[in-house]
């Protein structure tokens, strides 16, 4: 008996059809990945250049008469290194461009573009935005680009965050971005985000040191900000210039903390309302009172203050000594 025929679309094709339809329907991407001929790519004239080196320099060589010959050469060394890396491991990180007429303009990845030019490859992997990302979106793209670079200085990282947060604050009309929001938009960890927010408010010598590259560690910067004592703080900043360790800085922080704790303890011993009278205190030394009174009689030229004034005092009785001391204070007060 012939088995009844059964037909259907194979599971693989059926799944493939479903997945393809779903991907198109759910597509919310604002960009696409592509491979673009190098000849169609140009630098964005609206973005400030970070490199002195131009595509022409890479393709034709740097003109010896170029005023920026030395700095361009230095940059070219870096580009050559990068091109070797791309040649060995391929371009894992596409450049970012947007379509502008017939050309594609670079949003991020100028160095990778130049390195690929050097390799004389005809095309490059790129992430293509449908239109130029502007404002906050542009800053966010550039943040992610810059964040992946290993040779960025602490100053550059802080300024990138500043640029990004300023743009966000302007877009959302808020005065200050919260730590949670910064984490959300940048993917930074909680401690990193908190540290960068502290770094954004730095000024003075510490900020100057970051700017000049004397201090290039965010962790060290945060430790220094914990030091309140100006001398210790200066010591900490100066020590960073001579490559002090984090351990050393933390010891300074501890010193500062202890210093602040002693001062605090001293402040804690005085309680209650301010005094309005002098407390003369107590003593069990009978001879001190007689010494004190006879001393005042000797130095002070006061007719009321003579040995005769105290003729009724028994210098061996505590009550008489208290009476004598009070009599001395009264005579002295009557003089004022």
């Amino acid at each position: 008996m012939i088995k009844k025929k059964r037909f259907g679309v194979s599971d693989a094709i059926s799944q493939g059809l479903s997945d393809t339809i779903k991907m198109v329907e759910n597509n919310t991407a604002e960009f696409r990945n592509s491979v673009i001929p190098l000849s169609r790519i140009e630098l964005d004239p609206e973005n400030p250049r970070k490199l002195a080196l131009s595509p022409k320099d890479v393709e034709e060589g740097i003109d010896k008469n170029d005023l920026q010959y030395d700095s361009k050469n230095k940059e070219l060394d870096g580009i050559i290194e990068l091109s070797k890396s791309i040649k060995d491991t391929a371009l894992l990180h596409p450049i970012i461009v947007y379509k502008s007429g017939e050309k594609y303009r670079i949003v991020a990845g100028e160095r990778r573009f130049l390195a690929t030019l050097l390799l004389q490859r005809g095309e490059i992997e790129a992430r293509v935005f449908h239109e130029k990302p502007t404002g906050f979106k542009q800053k966010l793209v550039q943040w992610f680009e810059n964040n992946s670079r290993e040779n960025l200085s602490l100053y550059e990282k802080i300024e990138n965050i500043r640029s990004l947060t300023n743009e966000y604050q302007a877009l959302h009309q808020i005065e200050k971005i919260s730590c949670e929001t910064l984490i959300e938009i940048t993917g930074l960890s909680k401690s990193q985000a908190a540290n960068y927010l502290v770094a954004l408010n730095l000024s003075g010598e510490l900020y100057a040191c970051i700017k000049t590259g004397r201090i290039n560690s965010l962790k060290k910067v945060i430790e220094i900000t914990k030091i309140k004592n100006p001398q210790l703080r200066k010591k900490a900043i100066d020590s960073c210039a001579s490559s002090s360790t984090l351990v050393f800085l933390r010891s300074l922080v501890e010193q500062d903390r202890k210093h602040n704790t002693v001062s605090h303890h001293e402040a804690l011993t005085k309680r209650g309302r301010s005094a309005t009278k002098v407390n003369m205190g107590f003593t069990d030394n009978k001879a001190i009172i007689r010494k004190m009174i006879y001393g005042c009689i000797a130095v002070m030229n006061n007719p009321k203050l003579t040995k005769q004034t105290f003729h009724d005092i028994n210098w061996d009785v505590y009550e008489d000594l208290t009476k004598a001391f009070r009599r001395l204070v009264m005579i002295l007060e009557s003089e004022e």
Partner: protein
Amino acid sequence: MKIFVPANNKGGVGKTATSVLFAEYATKQLKMRVLGIDLDPQCNFSQRYLSMEVDPSSPEGLMPPIHPDFDPTNLDPLDSEWDGRSSIADIFYGKPIFPYPTYIENLDIAPACGDRLLAAESVRRAELAEKVHKRMQEFLRLPEVEQQYDLAIIDTAPSKGPLTISAIRASTHVIIPTVMEDKPIQGVYGMLQLWMQESFQRPKDLPIELVGILPNMFDQRTTLHNQMYSSLLANKEIGKYVFPDDLKLSKRVVFAETDCTGASPRSIFDFPENNLARKEAVAVCEYITKRIFS
């Protein structure tokens, strides 16, 4: 101007038949101004309306006849080098196009030229391929073209090469005709991949709409066609794009007959209204019209 592209990786599934059907429906029934474009080096769409000639430089290929408006004694100075023939392939060579009128009012055709289209199809270098890919879109966006026509229909080859990419990239609407058999449905999958790839490059407000998967040459007597059709319909995602149950093009010899040189009637829409093949064709075309124009 809407740009409608029947496409499928597999040959012989009805791309040209769909192009012909909708071109004639749009002009004869809806009175639209239509430009038919033949991007298939096989030149079948062109041959429907023109007496294509054998290309002496390429015996396997066909070329368009001399244009009816060609007058070598009175040429426009800008066209001084025109040899009297015009093909859509000329857009890939930077030359102007002179669409040919057909026997149907308001239907013009930009015919294929086998040899030249094969040359464009074989381009592989990224830079050149990119030029081919975007050329059709550039051409169809010319103001003089957009103002002249309500609808362009691009017939494509069974391929995912530069010419088909060029057509899909230019399109506003894509239809995938298929026979309800295994290999043609694999062709559907291949073409959906191309649709997806091109869709991702489009801005959100200019999508490539998928009109649907049109069952063609459907033989309802066979278990194979019925079950393959049901299998596609049962798929949640793809099912919504498969033409509904009563909208198929059945396997009817009349479609092949009207395709013959000298056939009468020449078009399915010239048959009586109660003709089954015509009724089927009208129903399918009404659905396509709704998908494109509403």
